[in-house]
């Protein structure tokens, strides 16, 4: 009976997602952000990825960026963060953005352009 009163009158246990949400933890492994100017094209990220989600691909602007850079397939990615851990220049980093659903499979292949720096670590939004 006490349990009933406790839960009936206490605060809600759930949040009205997505209007309300808690920010993810600082270490949360979400979407990648890629800093093309830091990349040295060593290919370590491609070799260390357990699911072959990263392929070294040419940049859309080959005159400015002539080498190959990581193209990430978010559908294969398991968001383990090994690419971030072993990148020698921290060119790939994982943010706290977890709103990754889409209706178009092609959107999930992220080309190696400069990452979107407006994605905030603390407050991702849909």
């Amino acid at each position, binding site marked *: 009976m006490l349990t009933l009163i406790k839960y009936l009158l206490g605060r809600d246990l759930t949040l009205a997602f997505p209007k309300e949400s808690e920010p993810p933890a600082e270490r949360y492994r979400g979407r990648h952000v890629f800093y093309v100017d830091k990349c040295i094209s060593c290919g370590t990220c491609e070799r260390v990825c357990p699911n*072959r*989600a990263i392929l070294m691909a040419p940049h859309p602007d080959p005159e400015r960026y002539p080498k190959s850079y990581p193209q990430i397939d978010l*559908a*294969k990615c398991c968001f383990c963060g090994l690419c971030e851990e072993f990148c020698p220049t921290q060119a790939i980093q994982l943010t706290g953005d977890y709103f990754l659903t889409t209706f178009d499979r092609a959107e*999930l*292949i992220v080309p190696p352009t400069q990452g979107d720096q407006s994605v905030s670590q603390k407050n991702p939004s849909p």
Partner: protein
Amino acid sequence: MPLESAWELLARFSPRREGNSIWATVPTDEAPSLLEALYLQGWSYLSAISAVDWPQRGALELVYHLWSLEDKGFVHLKVELDRTAPEFPSLAQLFGGSAQVNEREIYELFGVDFPGNPALGPLFLEGWEGPPPFRKDFDWRAYVRDAYYSEAREEDRAYFQD
């Protein structure tokens, strides 16, 4: 004490001792009677049966992992079978259900026959017509590529590299 008596029983097969585990490879024709002797010594808990495929040697190795509840130690007993027609007498009567289900798994995935096992049949795979899939000569990657992926699709390109 089961660990000491197992060590004596297996002494003529040059066993290896690592902490609380004894590893020994024994000849295939003596293995069933050795396993029965170990069971009578108190090694009644069959933890698992592993199979390792060694095509270079033409052998398929079975490893019986026995745990002693009394002595808190392992005996890992290895048996080498001929890869072309692997079979080994079933231990389902002696060790019980744990042996029966492990043998069934190895029958399905490696193609080893266990005469005397009451229920050998498909376990995980449904409608599988090909060769035993966990053997080294079954090319998994080629099968998966043919069955599921297409080189024409951009997102499958990664699976066709090396």
